[in-house]
C-alpha cells in the first residue's frame, strides 16, 4: 500500500517527507514501546504510535522504518521533524486513536507483523 493511500484513508496530515508519499508499506505495527519496535524483523513497516519524542524518530532510523503515524493528536516537535528530515522519514499526524488507525489500515489490506 502506498503511503499516500494511508494518508487519504486516515484523512491525516503529512508533517514531513511529502516527497516520499509514493513509497509503499506492507506491514503495520502499533506500539508505544520502542523496545518492541526494535525487535521487528519485517521490511516495509509502518509504525503507529502514541509516543512522540526524539527516540521515536531514532528508533525508526535504526529499524529502517520510513513512516510513522502519530495517533490521537500527538504532535511532532521541531527537533523530531529535523531528525526525520535528516533521515528521509515521513511523519504523519492524525487525531484518530491508535485502535481506529490500525483498524482502518488493516481493513484496507495492510498486514500485521505477528
Amino acid at each position: 500500500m502506498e503511503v499516500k493511500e494511508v494518508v487519504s484513508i486516515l484523512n491525516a496530515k503529512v508533517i514531513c517527507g511529502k516527497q516520499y508519499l509514493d513509497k509503499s508499506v506492507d506491514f503495520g505495527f502499533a506500539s508505544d514501546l520502542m523496545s518492541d519496535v526494535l525487535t521487528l524483523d519485517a521490511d516495509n513497516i509502518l509504525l503507529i504510535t502514541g509516543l512522540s519524542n526524539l527516540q521515536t524518530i531514532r528508533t525508526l532510523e535504526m529499524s529502517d522504518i520510513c513512516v510513522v503515524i502519530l495517533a490521537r493528536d500527538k504532535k511532532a516537535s521541531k527537533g523530531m521533524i529535523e531528525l526525520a528530515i535528516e533521515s528521509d522519514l515521513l511523519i504523519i499526524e492524525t487525531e484518530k486513536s491508535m485502535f481506529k488507525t490500525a483498524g482502518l489500515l488493516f481493513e484496507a489490506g495492510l498486514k500485521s507483523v505477528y
Partner: protein
Amino acid sequence: MVEETISLQYKIDGGDFKKAGYASSQIKKRLQKLNIHPKVIKKIVIALYEAEINVVAYAYDAVIRIEIGNETVKVKIKDNGPGIQDINQAMEKGYSTASSKIREMGFGAGMGLSNMKKNSDKFDIKSKINEGTEINIINYRINIKNENN
C-alpha cells in the same frame, strides 16, 4: 588480500536522553558509505542503539569502538557504571530495572540485551560491579552481489 581495517571511536554520556542515538546514527551513516549490506548495517545499528540507550539509562558514560574489516564488523561498548549483578538474569526477556522516566521514553521492556544478542553473529558481555559493563559484538559482512541472506 591485505586486511584493511577502519577504526572509529565515539564517546557517549549517561543520563542524557536527548542525545541518545546520536552515535549510532553517525556510525550508520559511515557504514552506509562503505558498501556494507543494508541488512548487516541494520543488525549492527540496532544492537548499538540498544547499547546506547542502556548506557544513557543505567551507566555514567561509555566508549564505543568500531573496527570495520574486509570480513567482519566488530563493535565494543565499554561503560563506566554500576555493572550488572546477574548477567543471566539481565539477558532474560522481560527482566528490567528501568525507572519510570525510562519507561516514559518508550523503553524498559527488558528486551534490549536479548535483542542485541539476536542481532549479533557473536555476542559477549562481561561486567564488574561498581566498575562497568563491556559488550563485544562481531557481525560478518555478506557480499552485496551474491546475497545469500
